[in-house]
Every structure is written in structure tokens, then in C-alpha cells.
């Protein structure tokens, strides 16, 4: 094997390997949408749909009662109150229920908030349908305002039998700076 030949072969192998490394760098970013799709399909991490459910429940399963609990948390930088009117409700699958949430802004400036829902067990996320939710949009709170934010939901009649309790958690974040940055 001549020297020229070897040099060419080395270059060829080198090129292939560099392409592979760059492709794997891209793969890391491809994992982001891929992860979202997986979460959508499986309800992994308890992500609920970010849009309102348009069709109502097909039926109400009267002989079954499921407990739905509500948890509220404040993300970093949020100083106001954030709570639900009730800590838990007993519902029949298919029954449409309204729960009110409250948020307040004690600051002297207006803020924009975004609430992020999460369901536990994650498996139940697919069976929780919301026809209206404050989490679908960003909510603005004027200085000193206390706001009532309704959320209307029903559980899918198909909810697996072994799920008797599910917890819906909301974390509220202050996204004022983030919105300001994107509107610039």
C-alpha cells in the first residue's frame, strides 16, 4: 500500500467519523421534539393537552367515583398567592366540573404569568380533558390585582379502573421578562 493511498484512506475515515459526530450533536436536539411526541402519546411526565377539549363526554359513569386533588405551587420569583378554591373534589368520570383558582399580584407593577399543569400518575394525563383552563393562555395580573381563574374539566369515561385518585398540579411562573424579551 503506497503512502499516498494510506493518506487518502485516513482522510476518508476521518471525514466519515466527523460527519457522524456532527450528526450525533444534531441528534441531541432531535431528542427534544421526539420527547414531546412520546409524552403526547404516553402521557409521560403527566403533561396534559395544552388546548381546550372541543367535544364533551360521551356518558357519565354514575357508579364510579374518582378523587381529583389539586396542588398549586409558585415558581421562582412569584410572590403572590396562588391557590385553588377547593383541595379535592369527588367526581364521576364524564361529569363536567368547575374549579376556581386564585392568583394575586402584590407587586406594584403588572405581571404576566403562565401556569403549567402536571398530572400524577402520568398515565392519567390522557384521560383528563379540560374544556377551559387558565393555563391555556398567559394571564396578566395588574398591580395589586387578585384574579379568579376558572378551570373546567371532565374525566374520560375510559379512565383505567385502577386509578382512583389523581392529582392535578399547577405551577405558576412569572414570564413578564420573557414576554418583554420576545416582543422587542
Amino acid at each position, binding site marked *: 500500500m503506497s503512502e499516498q493511498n494510506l493518506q487518502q484512506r485516513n482522510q476518508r475515515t476521518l471525514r466519515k467519523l466527523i460527519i457522524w459526530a456532527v450528526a450525533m*450533536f444534531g441528534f441531541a436536539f432531535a431528542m427534544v421534539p421526539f420527547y414531546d411526541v412520546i409524552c403526547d402519546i404516553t402521557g409521560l411526565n403527566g403533561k396534559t393537552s395544552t388546548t381546550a377539549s372541543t367535544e364533551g363526554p360521551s356518558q357519565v359513569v354514575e357508579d364510579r367515583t374518582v378523587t381529583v386533588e389539586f396542588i398549586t405551587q409558585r415558581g421562582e420569583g412569584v410572590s403572590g398567592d396562588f391557590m385553588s378554591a377547593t383541595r379535592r373534589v369527588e367526581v364521576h368520570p364524564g361529569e363536567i366540573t368547575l374549579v376556581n383558582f386564585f392568583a394575586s399580584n402584590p407587586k406594584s407593577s403588572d405581571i404576566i404569568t403562565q401556569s*403549567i399543569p402536571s398530572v400524577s400518575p402520568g398515565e392519567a394525563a390522557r384521560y383528563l380533558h379540560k374544556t377551559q383552563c387558565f393555563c391555556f393562555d398567559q394571564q396578566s395580573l395588574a398591580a395589586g390585582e387578585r384574579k379568579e381563574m376558572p378551570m373546567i374539566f371532565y374525566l374520560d369515561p375510559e379512565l383505567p379502573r385502577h386509578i382512583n385518585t389523581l392529582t392535578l398540579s399547577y405551577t405558576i411562573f412569572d414570564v413578564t421578562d420573557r414576554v418583554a424579551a420576545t416582543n422587542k
Partner: protein
Amino acid sequence: MSTAAAHDDHHHHAPTGLKRWLFSTNHKDIGTLYLWFSFAMFLAGGLLAMVIRTELLEPGMQFVDPEFFNQMTTVHGLAMVFGAVMPGFVGLANWMIPLMIGAPDMALPRMNNWSFWILPFAFLILLSSVFMSAFGAGNPAAPNFGWTFYAPLSTEYGPASTDLFILSVHMMGISSIMGAINVIVTVFNLRAPGMTLMKMPLFVWTWLITAFLLIAVMPVLAGAVTMMLTDRHFGTSFFNAAGGGDPVLFQHVFWFFGHPEVYIMILPAFGIISAIIPTFARKPLFGYASMVYATASIALLSFVVWAHHMFTVGMPLAGTLFFMYMTMLISVPTGVKVFNWVATMWRGSMTFELPMKWAIAFVILFTCGGLSGLMLAITPVDFQYHDTYFVVAHFHYVLVSGAVFSMFAAAYYWLPKWSGVMPNKLLGELHFWSSLISVNLLFFPMHFVGLAGMPRRYADYALQFADYNFWISIGGFWFGLSQLLFLAVCVLCAMKKGEKAPARSWEGAEGLEWEVPSPAPFHTYDTPPVVK
């Protein structure tokens, strides 16, 4: 980039002094640089571990504040994984792979120089934040989120020095990828005539597979830290729930890198042990082909087990079952390897020179670490063990008495070839026995405190763990000090003080590296040897 063949001009003027090392394109010089660097990082990371063990000697807060303690655990992990273990194996690859396959040098010598010289700067950047922290600049000055740098600890809550950390991880990544590319190109294109793939020494095989793992996952790590960087400064929300991202995604991306990384740190060790045991058992390696296939299967399986690090994040049952079974499956090829090593020793004419002592200690202690890994793989059990000292015990058994012991074995085995003198027997024996006893005193009780519920990464603990922690700390100091004996062994060899080593430094040693004189001349195998 010039190739090795174009470079082996014997009459060129070899630079001396500092220039020899700065501009070196010689695989032996670069290998030496890597090995010294790795040892320096081992001592630096060890120093940080001493701070951890000093604080944990007694319950309550004594010496450092919790913030500084967190920085110690973080930088200790990073320095050991990226500074000590990985460059150590790259150093061994640089020195040994060309010698073992009869090549004159690595295929891409200039890139080789570059991939080493990036490293000291990467660690200068990372460790500078520790110095800033120790001398009171910024609070906290050094990364404090654990070596796994989970978001949002490293994004929203990360200290300003997180950006230094990101830059340094990028540099380490580039260095590792270049090192891996070099290994693959060398092994594919520079083997001596007759050296078919299935005739290669197992160290070359395991490194070839490791190199493929490196190219597959180091870019993913680079992707993860890039996402962190843009989350921190450029308004993206990959890992930020407020903007529609998901912090759990970080864990998936990180462990997709992190689990193959675990095998990157152990596969070359398997290769070393597979070289040493046949030498001192005076029998060929039992089941060569099965060793190669076992290594390849471990590498492939490593891509489908990552979520066993995150059973407790709340995965669907089917997901946890999948990752649990896949993880347990890995113990099959690993078991094949341990079986083969034992079968190689079976009825061999064994002698127990220093490399063999380390190798046998490796086989036993690594298997202990593997067994606790199997326990951790069981999902319901993992819920109990997650983030306790049991996990700390597990990965230190496979990394310290596994990877690090294998590197000691390799050093004692090949030091005669590198330096031309046999390593000092008395110091070596002291180093071995002292390390062997102290490493078990250090890590074995961690199993107990872990099972009893002591969480990792805390600067304090409940009173009932006090006795065990006292002895763990004593083991820690003892193990740390023992490594100074190894420093003495290396310095003596570097100064050529000791019994002169013959070309075949160990009676039963086989392989091309023992055909060249000891110390190996600056240029070897200019004309390739013929392998029958």
C-alpha cells in the same frame, strides 16, 4: 493532516525541553503527557474528596459550609470522570495501540497533539472556579449542582461559573471525540500486515468499541450543555417549564450520554485485564471471540438502559419494566467476561507479580460493584436506594476498584516498557496492599449507611451514621495517602532508578509490544512487523 507514515523521518531534528512536549506528534510522548495529566487530576480530584471526607468525619458542620461542600462533590466527580479516568485510558491507548498493532504512530499525529493540549486548558477553566471559591470570590463561585448538573439546578439556579463549566465541558468533549477518531482511524488503517481484526489484542478491541461509543455520545453531551447555555442566556426553554420545556428532558438527554459514558470508563479496563491475566496465568485468554462479542453487546445495550438512572421521576410501568430488564440483561455479557477471566486462571501456572495482584483485585471488586448494580436495576428496590450512599458505594466500586485499579494494573504492567526499568517492588507491594485494604474500608461501609437511608450529597448526616462515617473517612484518608506511594513508583521509573527491564519484561507476556526493546525507542515499527 500529515499521516504517520509521512512523518517517520528519522533524521529530523527532534525538539528538546518544553518544545518537545508542546509540539509533540509522537504517540509515546503524547501518551506520557496524557498519563501524567490523568494522575495529576486524580490527585486533584482526590484532594477534593478529602475535603468531603473531612467534613463527614463527624456529624454536624465542622470545616466547610454546605455550599462549599456541594462544590466539592461536583468538581470531585467532574475531575475524576473527565480528568482522571477518561484521559488515563486515552493515554494508555496512545502508548499501547500503535505498539500492539505494529503501527509506527497514531494515524493523525497532529490531531493527537491538539486533543491532548486542549485538556489542561479545559481543566484550568473548571478548576479556576474552585480556586475563586476557596479564596472567597463570588458565592457560590464553583459549580455546585452535582456532576450530573441536572436542570433547573444548573440552569435557573446555576451560579455564574456554570458558564465556565459549560465551556470546559465543550472542550473536554472535543478532546475526547478527536482522541476517539484517532483510535478508530489508526486501528482501521494502520494494522500490520496479517493483523486481522480477530487477531487484535483485546485492549485494542475494547478501545475500538469505546471509541465508537465516545463518538456517539460525547456530541450528545455537547448538545445538552449547549441547550443549558441557550436556556441560561438566549431565552430558549428546553428545560424550563415556564416556557413550555421540561426539566425531565434534561435527565433523558444527560443519561443518554451518561450511561454509555459509564462503559466508556470500563471497557478499556476489560481490555487491560484481558491482557494481564493470560500473561501471569501463562495460558492464552479463554474465549477470545466471546470476549469481543460480549464487549460489543455491552456497548449496544448501553444505549437502551439510560432511564434506570431516573426510575423515580415517574415513568409509566411499561417504561420502568423495559429499562429494568434491559439493565439486568447487561449482566449476561459482563458475566461472560468474568467467567472467561476466571477460566483463564483455572489451572494456569499463576504467579502474583504486581500487575496480576491488581488484576485479580479488579476482578473480585469489580464484580462486587456489578452485583450492587444489579440490585439497583430492580425498580422497586431502586426507589429505596435512589440517591443514597448505596449508589455511591456501587459506582465507586466499579470506578475506583474497577477502572482506577485497572489503570494501576496497566501502569505496573507496562511501566517497564515505557521507562525501561521495573517498578520498585517494595513500594509497589505497599501501594497495592495499602490501597486494597483502605479502598474497602472506604467504600464497603457505604453500602450499609446507604441501605439505612443516608442520602448522598449532604454535608451532614443523622447521628446513627456517625460510626460508619468515621471509618469511611479514615479509609478515605488512608487510600488518598497510599496514592503518594504510586507517585513515588512513577517518579523512580521516570528517573530510570530500578532494575533494568528486558524487552519481554514479564516471562509469560505475549504480543507485539514486547518485541521492541525496553524502554520502547522513540520510533518503533517503521517497517511493519509480519503477524502470522
